[in-house]
């Protein structure tokens, strides 16, 4: 079947099997490898991206379900060559080690701040509770998202 999904503002049209999962459409058909493919069981949250502005685990959604919808991936966070504050926060606060969970964490982090610009640490932990990080113990991820809350439009990254 033919599927058209607008990914980061660009329509992507492909012929796919109806059983194609959205995560594979994004990675293999659209060629955007920023979204990671993890547990395949909607547990780990590595594949989290936005569909129509809300975070979704893209391993548990068919590309066909996203036909005609808007998808935003981690590649869509930067604006005009400028990293999103959440991305800068992960750099500033060492919010990653292996980096596998990071794209999903940043998508949820951005979404949280869009809806709650000054979250508590507990609210951040709840927002990312469907996403697993095996490296950081989450502490620096929480700090990274708090950094972005404190620096909503900063241009300074001391990476």
């Amino acid at each position: 079947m033919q599927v058209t999904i607008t990914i980061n503002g660009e329509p992507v049209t492909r012929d796919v099997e109806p059983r194609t999962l959205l995560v594979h459409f994004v990675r293999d058909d659209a060629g955007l490898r920023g979204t990671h493919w993890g547990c395949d069981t909607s547990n780990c949250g590595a594949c989290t991206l936005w569909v129509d502005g809300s975070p979704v685990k893209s391993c548990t959604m068919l590309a066909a379900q996203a036909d005609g919808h808007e998808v935003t991936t981690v590649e869509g966070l930067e604006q005009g060559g400028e990293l999103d504050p959440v991305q800068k926060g992960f750099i500033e606060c060492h919010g990653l080690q292996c980096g596998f969970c990071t794209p999903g964490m940043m998508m949820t982090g951005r979404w949280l701040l869009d809806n709650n610009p000054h979250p508590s640490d507990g609210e951040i932990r709840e927002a990312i509770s469907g996403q697993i990080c095996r490296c950081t113990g989450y502490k620096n991820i929480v700090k990274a998202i708090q950094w972005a809350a404190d620096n909503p439009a900063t241009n300074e990254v001391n990476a």
Partner: protein
Amino acid sequence: MQTPAPVDYVRATSVENAISLLEQHGEDARLLAGGHSLLPMMKLRLARPEILVDLQGLSELRGIKVDGGDLVIGAMTTHAEILDSPILSEHYAIFREAEKVIADPVVRNKGTMGGSMCQADPSEDLSAVGAALKGTVVIQGSGGKRTVEIRNFHEGPYETKVKDGEILTEVRFPIRPGAGSAYEKVERRVGDWPVCSAGAYVVVSGGTVTDCGIGLTAVGASHFCAPDAEAYLIGKPPTEANLAEAARLAAESCDPTSDQRGPADYKKHLAQELTLRALRRAAAASQGA
């Protein structure tokens, strides 16, 4: 890599269209709501439909409203929408308390009321909420609509009264002025299925319990409810001793099995303790505490 077996996909244009597609394809067709139960089942080949009928475009199945004396939740309403609903919170705290511990925030953006009810997992939290509140489901087929009590909805694990060619369109809960309600869950880790959950509503009037409902999930309670415990409590003051005896009766009516979530005796202990905590808070809320 886990991928569903080959399948066809079509979007329904109306409830009637969905029903006619179901009739056309018989048991080879499955309705697709949020997909967060069905797609994992398809990946594991526990479900192998030939065609998926996607309900995403049916806005008439989505939303929360008051209709007469009932709260009505459309089948395609997501967990996130139930969690955030001021109307539901105004009448029953149990919805918000249960939804806060169902899966995780990202999954709650996709999973739906109707999908959860029709998946009919024996550990489904919304089944306990629905049984506690004595709700009803509306099922529509080509012959019209029928209403089934949630306490009579489950035929067994993963089996419901919804037949081939039918669709669950909405779930209804009677509004009970003065009712307090609460939900208690123990899970192994955040976002997991419950080891045991218990929910309750209580109406206290003139110092006695005039109405109540108790729902339990994951512990083998017949139809997710505990009618003997409810009957015991009606007409009695909501003292700690009476609530404790009701909780004991509720646990007695459960028949949990030992599995990787815990041994049966531990689950039975949880059933009693969590029922007591839910009853305590529901009764206090009804008395304005």
